[in-house]
């Protein structure tokens, strides 16, 4: 994804990054809840250049039937990128990367949702990436949490997500596409801010133990910023001034 410019300065002497941000600053984030007519819940997120739509259906009957669980409802997640979402046209069939991301997002959401009350049903989370930038899994996870809340699924907490990473020997918040390509480490984090639990954690790249600790700390702080925007999206929809 995206070309790599060898001459690009990732971090200048004033601590300003290639897109003008400070090291502890996220890209521009916009979240909107309840954007679809047919889905039971939905959310749209713009996170930097990421443009991602999430729709929720359920709790509903499980097909195929053998997937159902008599003790609890099940969560199913599909993370899917459109062919035009990246620089080189992506084959529309699901890639191994998309299958893996679907799985880690599902496992990040599972601790938050209370599906025991809906045995033999499924809640389907459909994530559609219209445009991908760095950190699309975090943006997708954040939007999926808002969409689940919008669908009225009982939840223990929201899951907010943001990545941290190492760029030009410095730990920074919210790694963008250029930094991901040219940087040294990328650590996506999903976090339940009230229960204080990390539910998604991955790492690509090398960090010293000190850097590792710092990276988690910076990432969790990013999640808290995202959490405020998630709450705002839901408040705007349900307690807004009637504009929506």
């Amino acid at each position, binding site marked *: 994804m995206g070309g790599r410019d060898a001459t690009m300065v990732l971090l200048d002497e004033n601590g300003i990054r290639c897109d003008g941000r400070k090291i502890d600053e996220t890209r521009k984030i916009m979240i909107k809840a309840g954007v*679809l*007519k047919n889905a039971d819940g939905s959310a749209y997120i713009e996170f930097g250049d990421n443009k991602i739509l999430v*729709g929720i259906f359920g709790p*509903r009957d499980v097909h195929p039937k053998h997937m159902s669980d008599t003790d609890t409802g099940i969560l199913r997640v599909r993370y899917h990128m459109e062919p*035009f*979402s990246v620089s080189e046209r992506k084959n529309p069939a699901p890639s191994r990367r998309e299958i893996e991301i679907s799985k880690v997002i599902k496992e990040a959401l599972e601790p938050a949702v209370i599906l025991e009350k809906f045995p033999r049903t499924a809640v389907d989370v*459909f994530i*559609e990436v*219209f445009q991908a930038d760095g950190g699309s899994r975090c943006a997708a996870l954040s939007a999926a949490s808002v969409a689940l809340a919008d669908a009225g699924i009982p939840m223990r907490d929201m899951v907010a997500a943001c990545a941290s990473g190492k760029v030009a020997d410095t730990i920074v918040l919210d790694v963008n596409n250029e930094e991901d390509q040219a940087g040294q480490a990328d650590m996506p984090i999903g976090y339940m801010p009230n229960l204080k639990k990390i539910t998604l954690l991955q790492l690509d790249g090398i960090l010293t133990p000190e850097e590792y600790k710092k990276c988690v700390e910076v990432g969790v702080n990013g999640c808290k910023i995202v959490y405020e925007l998630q709450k705002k999206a839901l408040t705007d929809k349900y307690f807004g001034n009637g504009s929506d």
Partner: protein
Amino acid sequence: MASHSVIDELKKTQILELLDQEKRVDGRALDEPREISIETNAVPKANGSAKVRLGDTEVLCGVKIQPDRPFPDMGDKGIFICTAELLPLSHPSVETGPPQPHVIELARVVDRGIRESHMIDLSQLVIEKGKSVVGVFSDIVVIDYDGNLFDACSYAATAALLTSTTPKWTMVDDKPTIVNGEEIPLPTTTIPVSVTMGKIGNHIIVDPNGDEWDSMDARITITTNSDGNICALQKGGNDGFTQEEVVQCGEISVRVGAKIREKLKEAQQGSR
């Protein structure tokens, strides 16, 4: 999409009773399409893109343009490929997996409307004859469903193509290589517009919404070009049209299509 959802018998009866008084459930005239909104450049990473809302039906088309091998015996022409997909978040009945026949039909009808109108000047999209040509991929995804995907997808694809820009390639060491410089607009010759009409009882209605779509006996999609000529047609559904009805539908498609073409032109000019 008739098999998509079960429609209430009461609703169906209401639609029919209203039509007998020349009225529709949402208050439109019989030959009146729903409100159309077109947002171009919705996906800046694509070479061209458009998000189209037709009432509560919403679709997104992204165009990718990249070098490809020509089709056999078509070495002097670029490639155009159009796909369509119903995203599972668009409707509770949509399942993931291999495309259903009605979705394949959808993609092919949209493809045919654009191809048969010769909208894209494929002869200008040759890098080296017989060896390398420019491929134009128009991928459409359905975001939200409320009937008449044929027209929504067709307008999205057309708007995306009208606002697409393409780099130029030349052969260097037997490989297509981008020539540095400004991107040029994709060469187009005409603006195809499809108009889909449903038949309910003896009534012909333009742009059926979701409930009307599920009540239809038959449908017809007619695509016209900028000269007001008909360039593609597809009939569907379990009933037939009389010869008079087919002629009538042709007239409607030219008349209604002309107004929609103005909207597409506006979208094209607005993006420049």
